[in-house]
């Protein structure tokens, strides 16, 4: 056993081994089978997946608003605005551009 010291940062392997033996559970295979059988009733939550997409969607919407605002302020025609949006999307430098591009192509 290691020396007793309040400053010791090393593990006491002998004591640790004895504790693992003392706390050791039985029938691991049965436990694992039980958990796996219940996993089908508790599927991963999809709201986490939606939350992950939220920020990308928000970024895409921001880009679209900035481009539309710029086009409106500069008095551009609809055709010019479309071309500007296309350039922004194809450039891909703005965050979320690929998401917006995917949604634009999907609607056409």
């Amino acid at each position, binding site marked *: *056993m290691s020396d*007793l*010291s*309040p*400053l*010791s*940062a090393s*593990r*006491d*392997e002998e*004591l*640790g*081994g*004895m*504790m*693992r*033996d*003392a*706390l*050791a*559970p*039985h029938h*691991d295979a049965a*436990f*694992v089978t*039980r*958990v*796996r059988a*219940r*996993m*089908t009733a*508790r*599927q*991963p*939550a999809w709201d*986490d*997946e939606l939350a*992950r997409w939220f920020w990308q969607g928000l970024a895409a919407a921001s880009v679209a608003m900035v481009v539309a605002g710029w086009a409106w302020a500069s008095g551009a025609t609809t055709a010019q605005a479309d071309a500007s949006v296309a350039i922004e999307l194809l450039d891909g430098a703005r965050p979320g551009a690929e998401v917006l591009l995917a949604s634009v192509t999907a609607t056409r």
Partner: protein
Amino acid sequence: MTDVDEAALASRAAEGDPDAFGALVATHAPMARRVAFAILEDREDADDAAQEGFLSAWQAIRRYDARRAFRPWLIQIVVNAARDLRRRRRVRFTDQLDHVAAASRDDPARDASATDLGERLRAALATLPERQRMAVVLFDAEGYPQAEIASILGIPEGTVKSDVFHGRRALRKVLESVKEEWDE
């Protein structure tokens, strides 16, 4: 299982692969059940808590960051599940638990029913305050770094060091008394 294998499994599990998560359950079940038992001191309750921990982890697997180690993320969930269960159990069985705890605190080393080392060690662990017990089990038995234990238990690292020290001292006293008996 190597860290690389585990990271790959955790990554697949995070994509919703139940077989990958099942493999992680098989790997970590003994550790999760030991830690839950250290909190609850009852095999059935410990298994219920460990199971609830695994199922909660599975439900939240999309929130798991696959770049980080899986084991500490999992054990935090198992510890929370065990503490939740103990809280609920305490509400229902306060009287019985107090009675049992008082009996085991009298002198675990002289407990006539504690005939083997494992029983003596479990009895000694049961006399430690929960935080001390968890610190010494997570550090010496399960090999978690002290900083990680501090994060899991929500206490400063200095407190973990102190708890490990006091926990070891109490357990060693019991082990020495067992050795003396064996030498006689």
